[in-house]
């Protein structure tokens, strides 16, 4: 049984290890770095599950590095990305930090964004292999939000907003997937939307997910 004094001494020793280590990088704030590294953790989680449960294959093309942008933008196929195969056919691509063209923009007949409100970022996106620039909602297979932060209700509202700009509520329709992360969603267009968080409290706010076609996953590091 540890006493309070012994526990405090342990804390002092642990803090000493931090102080004696290298200083934190001053190039990019630690919080921003952590969020980007968490995106890479989620990429691994996705590939693990798609390979095991969907029999999809992923191939890193265009390089051997993963590029993580601090600000989102259009698809850039010259950056390394993942080609997605079903059986032997190349069917889709997976990118990081890409903005998609909103449903509201597409439905009023604009194929290109006219204002910043016509685009929304997703941390990870799987789209038709032909999708370029800002993919349209009908080109999206899966959007993923990666949240390394305290999971509060505003993040649920954010996900509901993303869902609204990807599809309209309708009867259940099949997604591009047979099992994982979900095979049916009440959405037209029937993309999958996944919110991953390092905070296990993500499930406090997940109750609207099954109805609106949003999957909430706690993905520990």
């Amino acid at each position: 049984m540890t006493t309070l004094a012994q526990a405090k001494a342990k804390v002092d020793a642990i803090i000493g290890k931090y102080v004696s280590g290298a200083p934190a990088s001053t190039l990019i704030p630690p919080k921003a770095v952590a969020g980007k590294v968490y995106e890479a953790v989620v990429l691994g989680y996705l590939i693990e599950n798609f390979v095991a449960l969907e029999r999809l294959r992923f191939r890193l093309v265009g390089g051997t590095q993963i590029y993580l942008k601090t600000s989102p933008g259009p698809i850039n196929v010259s950056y390394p990305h993942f080609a997605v195969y079903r059986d032997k056919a190349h069917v889709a691509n997976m990118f990081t930090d890409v903005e998609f063209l909103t449903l509201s923009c597409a439905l009023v007949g604009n194929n290109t964004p006219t204002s910043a409100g016509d685009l929304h970022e997703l941390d990870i996106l799987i789209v038709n292999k032909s999708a370029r620039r800002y993919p349209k909602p009908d080109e999206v297979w899966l959007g993923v939000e990666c949240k390394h932060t305290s999971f509060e209700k505003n993040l649920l509202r954010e996900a509901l907003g993303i869902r609204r700009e990807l599809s309209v509520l309708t009867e259940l329709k099949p997604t591009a997937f047979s099992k994982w992360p979900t095979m049916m969603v009440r959405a037209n267009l029937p993309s999958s939307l996944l919110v991953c968080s390092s905070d296990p409290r993500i499930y406090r706010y997940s109750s609207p997910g099954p109805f609106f076609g949003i999957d909430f996953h706690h993905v520990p590091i």
Partner: protein
Amino acid sequence: MTEDEYPELLRYVRSRIGEIGRADLDEFAYTAVEAADRPSDALLGYLSFVLTQIVLESQEGVLRAQERLNHALAMTDGGRVDDLILLPTDVEQAAINREQVSLFRVLPRRADFIVALQQFYDDVVRDRNEPHR
């Protein structure tokens, strides 16, 4: 330790983290405390958030992410990830005078700290589950 001693230990941990200039880390980790049912849960939640954050802002996080990716890619012969590259905005590039940043190269190594903190976390779990003598 008894359950009523954990709030003091949490205050002590927070003060020490503040002393090393990581008020940002304390603020982030303290969000784990609000939903805790008992003081030891609050401490464990706080420590868990500190641990997660430190891993993700260090070389250890980059390595863990790469290992997970490479393990998954190896299942279908999908290539190999050698590094994670951060692409800053144009404004950030100008500020840091770099077009891209290799995360493994710029992030600090924190293995000793992470191992010690994980051990402390496990000690707290074990201690609170032991019957008091």
